[in-house]
């Protein structure tokens, strides 16, 4: 994803982890971000993740928001020639029991699908795996902004 310029992978990891630490500190330190935030590398490709690969219910490795929603994500970066680029990501926010839709997911695929209208490279699932709404290519922090600053406050309003 050449159009998105990221700082180094080390700085990008620090930004994502710090974002979660700050959100957690602002909402009562419910999560142990240091334990649930994991990274691994292979050659010049780096993967950072929180939560399980597939959401099958609450786990200790999810990040919990104030509304009770749980967040899991995986982000893959590639660093070469002193440039850091985004390869892919998936951010899944599962809403508390009884909410509709039951989840939101932001996906960035590593390459274009053979039928891009059917599966845009960057898309959003509004609670249905089969429905993919195109969305602009966002940085990981921009996705987190949409989750924490757009979706989460609406859940808080709905809960009142």
């Amino acid at each position: 994803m050449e159009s998105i310029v990221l700082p180094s992978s080390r700085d990008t990891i620090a930004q994502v982890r710090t974002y979660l630490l700050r959100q957690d500190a602002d909402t009562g330190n419910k999560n142990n971000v240091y334990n649930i935030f994991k990274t691994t590398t292979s050659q010049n490709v780096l993967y950072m993740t929180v939560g399980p690969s597939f959401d099958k219910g609450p786990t200790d490795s999810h990040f919990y928001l104030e509304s009770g929603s749980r967040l899991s994500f995986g982000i893959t970066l590639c660093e070469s020639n002193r440039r850091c680029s985004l390869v892919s990501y998936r951010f899944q926010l599962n809403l508390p029991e009884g909410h509709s839709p039951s989840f939101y997911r932001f996906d960035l695929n590593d390459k274009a699908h053979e039928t891009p209208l059917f599966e845009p490279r960057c898309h959003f699932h509004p609670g249905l795996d089969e429905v993919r709404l195109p969305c602009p290519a966002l940085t990981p922090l921009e996705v987190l902004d949409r989750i924490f600053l757009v979706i989460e406050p609406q859940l808080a309003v709905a809960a009142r």
Partner: protein
Amino acid sequence: MTDFIKEPAFEIGRRVEIRGPYAWFVILKPTVDVEAALDAFISEFSAFLGGPVRVISCTGPWLGKLRKDLADPASDAVVISDLDQADANFWRALDINRSGLLRSGPVILWLSSLGLADLCEHAPNIRSFVGGSIVYLGIRGDVMTASERQQRISDLESHFQVTSAEVILRAESGTLPTEPHYVEWLVLLDRGDLV
């Protein structure tokens, strides 16, 4: 030196935020992988502050350069990284010139325990700038263990009903579906070359 608490960069950032302008801190660096620890601290401290953190070196014509670096600009966060090589004369000179070092941005002194002892002995006024703001840098590892990697690989195999060997074959032939999970799978298999 065992009385100081250990804090990760994020918590140090919060302390800096609470102290406000003109804050001086001593961070006691680890004894191993010092350069990597400094790089990681700079990344995390910059992420916390939402802006770059300058690393100032004291090599060369020490005091004059240091005063200039601290003053221009005077509002950003700086880390003075090589004060451990300062001798007693330098610390004394720094102490005498302390008024010229005042700045609104936070100053982090990156020191070993021995460096802190030198500061306390030869620069008591600088020591008073720091006050109680002395912490060990806490290193929190985030690297996945081998068993965590294997568990994720097993989860992926179970979910997609495909073996890892097949995933590698399909990646090599360019027929792997476009999906974030498959990219992650290759990284977990240490086949980043196929991404």
